[in-house]
Every structure is written in C-alpha cells, then in structure tokens.
C-alpha cells in the first residue's frame, strides 16, 4: 500500500469546487456524495445504507451532522471501534488453553446405583476425603463400584451396583447452578427448560444436562458427599502420608495424596475453600452452594457460539462444549464489552488501561465470585505466608443479584479492586499474553504504536543474565525489561496477585546459592539474579520500582506518553481509511491528535473529525479502475 511520493502526488486529484459535498443537502447528490454516505454507513452503522435510508439522505432536509450525532452514539459505532482494538490485541486463546483447575473441575462418570440403574456421578479428582482408600479420587473404590475412574476419561472396568448403605453414605443429591436459576434458594424450583434459551438469551443446555437417560426430567445431580459441602472454610487435615512412593495401591489409578508442606504447617487451621490450597488440604471444602465453585467437565452440554463474527448474540454456529470452555468464551466477551462501553458512553479512552471498572454478565459473575481465585496459591505459597489470595478482582465486588444463567445482561462494576488496571488485569489478557514480556509488548505496540526491532545487531555469546546489558539483546530489552517489570506481581500464566508484604522485591531467606536454591524460592525469585547476598523477585530485576507500581504504573506511563494520543489516532484512522498513515499524513495526524486530546481523550470527537475530513471523504483514488 505504500507509495512513493511522486506517485502519490500524481494521484492527487483536482476537484472543481462545485458544491458536490454531501452536506450540501439542497443540491442534487452526486456519485461522490452517495459513496461518502455509503462509507459512513459501513463504518458507523455496520452495513451499507438501506433503500429507505438512501431516500432519507436524498431529502433536502437531511442534515449530515444530525445523522452523525445519532450514529456516533449507537452500539454499532462502539462495535466498530472496538473491532479496531480487538484486531490489535486479538483477545482470544486457542482451544489448547484450558481453564482446568483441580478445584473447579467437576468430572462426570457413570456408576450403577443400588438398583442397578446407570447414574451420572459428579466428583473432583483432587477432592480430599478422610477415607484413605478414596482420598483424591472418585468416592468409591474399585471393589465397591467395579470401576476405576481416570482423570477426564471414561471409567475402566465392569460396573456393579453399589450397596445402598454405601451409596447413601457417600453420595448426595444436589440442585446445581446450571440446572436451577434459583440454586441459592432454600428449595430451588426454577429448573432448566427449553425456554431458558429465550429467557436468558443464549443459555442453552443440551438435554444430557437436564433430562435423565430414561427421558425423565432431571431434578438434581448425584455428587460425592465431600464435593457437595458448602462451607466457606475448611480445616486443614494431615494423614501422616509424606512423600508417598512405591506401587499404586490396588484398586486405585493414583497414589493417595501426600501431606503437603502447607498441610503439615497448618494442620487444624481454617483455610479458604475458594483457593487451590483449600481444596487440596481440607476434606471439608466442597463445591459450595449448588456446586457454584465447580464447572462440570462433562458431558459436553453447554451450547456455545463457535462462529460468531457479529457477536455471541448472533452465532453462526453453535457447538455443545464442556462448561470450562463455555466459561472461557465470556472472558473474551468481558474485554469486548468493557471496550464497547468506553466507546459507546464516550468515556476517556485512557480507561482502556487505567480503569478499575469492568462489565460482567451471569457466567462472569459466577466466575469472579467463586472460581477466579482457584489458582491461588500453590503448594509452596505457605513458605511466604500466602494462603489467602489478594485478587485482581475482588469477589465481593460482584453484585449478588446477577443470575448466573443470564448471558445477555451486562452489569457494570465500578471498582474491581485496588490492583485492577483496565484490560491488563483481565484473565483473557493475562492468558493470551502469558509472560511478562508478552504483556508489556502487547501494551507497548498497541497503545504507543511502537515495536521492538533490532536493526543490524549482531548477537554475541554471553553469560550476562541481564538482557538489558547483554550485547545485542540490550537494543530492545533496555526498553522492554522495565516495561515487563510492571507485571512482576502477576505470575506468568496466572491472574493472582503477589502482595509486596509477602513477596518483597528481595527476600532474605531466599538469598541462597542459586545452585542449591529452595524450590519454593525458585518459583518466585529468579536464580539468575540470586546469590547468598542478593535475590530479586522474578521479573523485577530491571526495575524494582516498576514492579511495585504494577499494571497501574504501566497504565500511567503509557497514557501519559506523548505518543499515546497520536497512536490512538493512527490505529483508528488507519482502520477507517483502510490504509497506513504515511509521512504525508503527519500534519493531519497531529491535528487529529490535538482534537482528541482537547476533547478529553474521547473517541467520539476523534471519529467525527476523521470521517468528516477530506482524508476520509476523498480517500479513494477516483480514477477509472481504482
């Protein structure tokens, strides 16, 4: 698309100033007028004009300014500008990236009940149970059910009816969140039915999830008793098993869980059941009321849009998938709705990076209330005293009245919590860009329109661990490493927050010989920058200050940069013009940036200025064949 200057000059057309502009409504419309109106309609309405809209355009009383005002306040306009940033950030993750955690995965298997009936039984593979024979697996032994149940696979063996006393003792019926809209009520009655598709605008279950195999209505699901517990906290228990080795006990597919360092250190103490630690160390932690802390990983009964170029409300193709994939869909939608809200309400564009607000629907409300902390805090977290998550999204900020099945009502949450920073602290961003450097690069290139390019640099062998100093690497990493440091406190591939009080930039007890460094220290502190006298939190070496400033610090740095406004202009203008801005556009880009800044960083004024500028109206080479 780039053209030499001479060619571009040749392409400049000379128009007679004969009053053919579209806003000259009293004159007969020319072909250029119609094409301009069509372009506006495509960009601001999302489709070419309809015949009656063309007829209105042809009327003498048509006022383009008024029409623009209307379109620039419409959801279609917001969707168009959102698409600019979605194209840049590409906030979706491939199928291989799964939201699978030990605490949220509720596996479905089939067993025979005391009457010999084939029943779906839900359980967690990581569930702790007091009975050593079934601790950390399904709640029946092979002797009792005739089956061994592998992780995420069909049961192995010949099923046999489970004795009634055992059945009653080990399992319970629960009315789960996916089957009852009022699952938190004392006696839930609002059961899933085909009309939920209309009522909740897209919450659609396959029959397997609300009809029994014998075609009778499913009124509850059978769950192992420990999983059905609803306590918020559970007592840590120890079994005396440490470092279990040797052959797998008969009837099991795995060895029973060993006591973790955390369990040994905290035996008898209460632990939060919404954390990974709680599930792995307490037999009193279940899936909560209506199993709301868990996602059924089977059967694949959650209908979700798999082709939705016009948005999930207008799917072109739907497929039944397990709940964890369904939930992932909403992470992308959160980012999309968050951006659309900023553009539709004409809020300050800097909020894309700085805002502590967000927008959630039913599934996201469920996720943030009960599941988002399930990745906290890991077996070694107790080494640092980190057992209660400090979340990026405070679960208490989620309104209680959001119906989890309601996928179409989006509720704005004004404050996610003190660590929130626009798109940068959303799960989809943190998963899409899993590493600190990826995250920094995505923000740097999208919002400053700059990239890391090393021209003619020769890389030389080096032992220097600091890439800001290593010859060759330093060309880019001098800038990249301090930016990446802003994400120090959000571990890679995760979205929990490492509080400074528990994870200082340098921790005395992790100052060790890097070759013999404690495994717990190694997870959080970088062996490459550790010695007996020094250590540093992973990612912080280039800028401890930025590490403590966090994503909010990055938001401040980026949005206060003089390159931020011209970059917004560049991204939006290039998308609307359909061509890259060149040096010839420099003065115009500067003027647009001034309009944008003077207008309080609002997108509406900028887009209006762009689409009414000659650069947009006369963007096409009108010569024949172009």
């Amino acid at each position, binding site marked *: *698309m780039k*053209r030499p200057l001479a060619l*571009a000059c040749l*392409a*400049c*057309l*000379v*128009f*007679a*100033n004969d009053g053919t502009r579209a806003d000259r409504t009293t004159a007969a419309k*020319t*072909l250029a007028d*119609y*094409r301009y*109106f*069509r*372009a506006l*309609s*495509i960009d601001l309405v*999302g*489709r*070419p*004009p*309809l*015949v009656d809209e*063309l007829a209105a355009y042809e009327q003498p009383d048509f006022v383009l300014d008024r029409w623009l005002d209307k379109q620039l306040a419409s959801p279609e306009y917001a969707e168009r500008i959102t*698409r600019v940033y*979605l*194209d840049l950030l*590409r*906030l*979706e*993750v*491939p*199928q291989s990236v799964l939201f699978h955690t030990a605490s949220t995965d509720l596996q479905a298997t089939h067993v025979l009940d005391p009457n010999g009936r084939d029943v779906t039984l839900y359980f967690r593979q990581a569930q702790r149970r007091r009975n050593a024979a079934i601790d950390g697996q399904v709640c029946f032994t092979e002797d009792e059910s005739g089956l061994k149940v592998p992780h995420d696979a069909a049961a192995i063996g010949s099923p046999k009816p489970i004795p009634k006393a055992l059945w009653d003792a080990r399992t319970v019926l629960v009315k789960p969140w996916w089957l009852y809209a009022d699952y938190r009520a004392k006696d839930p009655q609002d059961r899933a039915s085909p009309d939920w598709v209309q009522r909740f605008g897209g919450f659609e279950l396959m029959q397997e999830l609300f009809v029994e195999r014998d075609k009778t209505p499913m009124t509850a699901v059978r769950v192992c008793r420990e999983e059905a517990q609803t306590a918020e906290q559970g007592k840590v228990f120890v079994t005396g098993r440490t470092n279990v080795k040797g052959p797998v006990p008969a009837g099991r597919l795995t060895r029973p869980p060993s006591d973790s360092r955390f369990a040994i250190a905290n035996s008898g103490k209460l632990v939060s059941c919404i954390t990974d630690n709680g599930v792995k160390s307490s037999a009193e932690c279940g899936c909560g009321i209506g199993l709301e802390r868990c996602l059924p990983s089977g059967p694949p009964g959650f209908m979700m849009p798999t*082709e939705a*170029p*016009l948005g999930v409300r*207008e*799917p*072109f*193709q739907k497929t039944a998938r397990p709940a964890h994939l369904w939930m992932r869909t909403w992470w*992308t939608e959160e980012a999309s709705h968050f951006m659309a809200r900023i553009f539709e309400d004409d809020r300050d564009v800097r909020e894309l990076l700085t805002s502590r607000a967000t927008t959630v629907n039913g599934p996201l409300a469920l996720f943030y209330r009960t599941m988002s902390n399930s990745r906290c805090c890991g077996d070694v977290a107790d080494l640092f005293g980190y057992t209660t998550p400090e979340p990026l999204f405070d679960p208490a900020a989620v309104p209680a009245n959001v119906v989890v099945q309601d996928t179409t009502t989006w509720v704005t949450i004004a404050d996610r919590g003190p660590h929130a920073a626009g798109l940068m602290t959303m799960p989809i961003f943190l998963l899409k860009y899993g590493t600190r450097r990826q995250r920094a690069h995505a923000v740097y290139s999208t919002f400053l329109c700059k990239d890391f390019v090393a021209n003619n640099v020769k890389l030389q062998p080096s032992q220097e661990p600091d890439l800001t100093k290593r010859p060759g690497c330093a060309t880019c990493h001098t800038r990249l490493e301090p930016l990446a440091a802003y994400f120090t406190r959000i571990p890679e591939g995760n979205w929990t927050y490492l509080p400074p009080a528990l994870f200082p930039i340098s921790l005395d007890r992790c100052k060790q010989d890097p070759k013999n460094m404690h495994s717990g220290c190694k997870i959080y502190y970088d062996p490459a920058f550790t010695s007996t006298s020094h250590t540093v939190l992973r990612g912080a070496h280039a800028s401890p200050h930025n590490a403590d400033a966090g994503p909010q610090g990055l938001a401040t740095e980026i949005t206060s940069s003089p390159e931020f406004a011209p970059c917004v202009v560049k991204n939006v203008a290039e998308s609307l*013009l*359909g*061509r890259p801005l*060149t040096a*010839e*556009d420099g003065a*115009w880009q500067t003027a647009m940036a001034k309009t944008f800044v003077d207008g309080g960083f609002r997108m509406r004024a900028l887009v209006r200025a762009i689409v009414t500028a*000659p*650069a947009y109206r*006369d*963007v*096409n*080479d*009108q010569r024949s064949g*172009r």
Partner: protein
Amino acid sequence: MIRRAVLLVVAVACGRPETIEPSRAVPFGGYSELALDPTPKGHRRMVPPEVYLRAYLTWFGGLSPAQVFQKARGRKLFDQWADYLVALGLPDYAIDAPRAAQSNTVMLAAMGRLGEALCVRSVEHDLRGRPDKRAVFAFEPIANPSRDEFASRFDTLHRTFLSYPARLAPADRVDRFYALYRSVAARHASGLLSADESGWAAVCAALVQHPETGLY
C-alpha cells in the same frame, strides 16, 4: 542620393509620433476556482466481512444467521455457514490470524455462492409473496418488461446493493443488465423459476457480486 537619404532620416526622426490607442481591459475567459486535493489516495477498501455478513442478513429480510441457513439451504444452494465464514477473510484471534486485507479467488467464489443463494431465495420469497414483505425485489414485477420498465425496477436493486441510483452509474449499465436479463430469461423459460424470475435472479446475483458491492 546621400542628400535624399539624409532628408528621409530627418523626416522620419522629426515627424509626428505615431499614437497607439490603449485597448480596454478584458477579463480572462474561462476562469474558475480550483482546489487542490492534497490527501493521499488509495485503492478502494474492502468491505469488512462483518459488514458484508450484516448486509447479507439484512438483505435476507433481517433474519438471524440460523434462520438464513434454514431458508437458504435446499437444492444444494447453501452449505454451512462455517464453509463460507472461513473464506470471507475474518480474523481468527485465537490463532493470531489477521483479517484478510485483499480479496482472493476463494473469497470471491464464496461471495458468489452466497449471492446466488440470496437472489434465488429472494425471488421465490419476494416475487411470489406479499408485496409488503418484499426485501430485495421491492417492486411490482411485470412479465417481459420493456427497457424502461426494467430500468425503474433495476434502480431499486442498484440502490440496495450499490447504494446509489443507477442513473449515476456508467451510461451503459442499465442496457448491459437489461441484456443480461433478457438473455437469461430467454434461456430459462422453464424450470423451478419462471423466465422473468430467472432474469431477475441473474441481475440480482450479478449486482451482489459486482466489485462495487464488495468495495467502498
């Protein structure tokens, strides 16, 4: 001789000077103000696939994608949405595939196929149905229209797909499309569609696939 020559020089030099009448100022003809357009130019942009799809659903009477699929399929006119979507150049964020910036033969073939499905189904729906429910052929059909009768109806289709009246198109456009209409109608006098229906379906399909429909 010399004396005569001297007298001539003196006479010329001392004679009454010749006077030239000043002419009246006349303004230059043909003057008008011209404005130089210095903005960089580019080729026309491709209509984004999302816009194309939105327009397509609108032309189908504002149906949902699932309803369009139900209505369009049959007689192998329409396969599955997924078959077309991948060809239209949509981005795939999950695998970092950007949106297509240029057309290609597969994309044009997909648009052609979608266009044919739309036009055939619209003929069946609009030309045989209630006048107030017509979405694409929003005019009163007549059998074997004359050139002028064709032109006024063609204008409706031209506005629908190309967003401007046919009178502003190149001068031969109406005649070329009228020739297409007559040619197709003559060759498809029998079949699932009548001769006139076949003619209108062909005109519609040609407009949907017209370069101006996919560019802006």
